[in-house]
């Protein structure tokens, strides 16, 4: 077993779909929370394999998408300073702020570097002691241990020229926010497998119980996504609401305790704003006071930035599962990955960008018709 190829087996995929079709008696709306899952679902055409009555809607779990425009503008203001080397995961480079993106700044001479791992920033700091190294620490719970390790080690090594601009989000508060919306359509969730690899799934149990929604913590390969969907549909049909673990080969109920210990020593929970959605209470991380010497927001005083999002963009409703990309008049016309107007188009894991990447803007006119082609699974 290599844990990838066997989870793309078309014959087994078909048998899971038949089973879903066999047990489904009513229409159900299920949300996959994680942007990586959205991308995999659209890439492999999983949503089009499912019977018509089982609808997948796409959640807010793409950290690039939900990073507020104000934070992106702040990052750009810091990156433009001559004594700064600004480091980021590649995903953030093309995200436009109010005045261009990081690529534009780089072409104008700013020192902006893409890193594979946050720890690369320590090497860059050692090689450039006269510069200030700033890392754009974005992500959900999955990335928090890596970002926390950078801050922890920077302090341990006395690397005073290393700081982080933190934009960290947490999944469970966003699920609660969606379920509390009066327009909510979501009846069950595919839980985020890699977030739960770190966090475990204890914190999902009260959500499932309180809002009576089944949750299947799910992996990212086609068979994982189909099996997770089957678990949720089974529960919906039976009228039960518990948390199940489809991704048991990778995680258990407690998650990665070692990683969480370091995360909790570096970060504390805070309120935060989600692009397209607004403020959600206790839905993010900020640096603890002890690590303030590494907080880019303290080191670089950037004025509060006022931003305006285009009125036409419906990404807020897409992120809550109320609407889909095709419901937007700008999708694929005014708004494309090269000219994104809002959260769900700025990253490949956003629902609009994933739909666009796999050609679904081309069948915009045909969406009312039943899908005919199922592709993607080898």
């Amino acid at each position: 077993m290599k844990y990838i190829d066997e989870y793309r087996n078309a014959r087994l995929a078909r048998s899971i779909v038949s089973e879903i079709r066999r047990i489904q008696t009513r229409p159900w709306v299920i949300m996959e929370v994680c942007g990586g899952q959205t991308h995999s679902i659209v890439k492999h055409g999983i949503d089009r394999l499912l019977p018509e009555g089982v609808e997948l809607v796409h959640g807010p779990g793409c950290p690039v998408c939900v990073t507020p425009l104000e934070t992106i503008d702040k990052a750009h203001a810091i990156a433009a300073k001559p004594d700064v080397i600004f480091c980021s995961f590649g995903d953030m480079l093309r995200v436009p702020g109010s005045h261009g993106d990081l690529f534009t700044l780089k072409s104008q001479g700013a020192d902006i570097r893409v890193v594979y791992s946050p720890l690369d920033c320590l090497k860059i700091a050692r090689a450039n002691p006269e510069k200030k190294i700033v890392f754009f620490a974005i992500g959900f719970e999955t990335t928090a241990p890596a970002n926390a390790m950078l801050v922890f080690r920077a302090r341990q090594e006395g690397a005073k020229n290393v700081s982080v601009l933190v934009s960290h989000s947490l999944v469970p508060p966003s699920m609660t926010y969606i379920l509390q919306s009066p327009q909510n359509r979501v009846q069950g969730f595919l839980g985020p497998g890699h977030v739960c690899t770190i966090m475990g799934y204890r914190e999902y149990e009260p959500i499932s119980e309180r809002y009576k929604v089944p949750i299947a913590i799910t992996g990212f390969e086609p068979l994982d996504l189909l099996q997770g969907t089957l678990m949720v549909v089974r529960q919906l049909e039976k009228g039960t609401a518990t948390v199940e673990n489809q991704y048991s080969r990778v995680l258990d109920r407690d998650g990665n305790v070692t990683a969480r210990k370091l995360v909790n020593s570096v970060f504390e929970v805070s309120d935060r704003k989600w692009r397209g959605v607004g403020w959600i209470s206790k839905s993010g991380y900020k640096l603890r006071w002890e690590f303030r010497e590494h907080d880019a927001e303290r080191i670089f005083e950037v004025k509060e930035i006022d931003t305006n999002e285009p009125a036409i963009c419906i990404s807020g409703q897409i992120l809550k599962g109320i609407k889909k990309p095709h419901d937007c008049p700008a999708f694929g016309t005014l708004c494309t990955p090269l000219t994104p107007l809002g959260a769900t188009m700025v990253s490949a894991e956003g629902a609009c960008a994933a739909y666009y990447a796999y050609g679904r803007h081309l069948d915009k006119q045909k969406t009312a018709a039943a899908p005919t082609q199922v592709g993607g699974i080898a």
Partner: protein
Amino acid sequence: MCLAIPGKVLEEFERDGMRMAKVQFGGIVREASLDYVPAAQVGDYVLVHVGFAISTVNAEEAEHTYQLLEEMDQLTELDAPVVDEVSARKPQ
């Protein structure tokens, strides 16, 4: 962004006080920190995200899940209509 890929631990080493490993993903070998998976050993499959192994893949659980899927597949085949003397006369 939360992409994490399973790879095989080829060898372990230490760097700057961190427990590191060479991890093979198909034809590619990259370095990853093992600090968050203290029990991982050479030969194990670990799930790697932005340079950190965040979990050791549990081979038994993987087999078990896969076996359930295989069983479902066999049941689906059993679901095919039985053709007896009566049904053979009717169109399906």
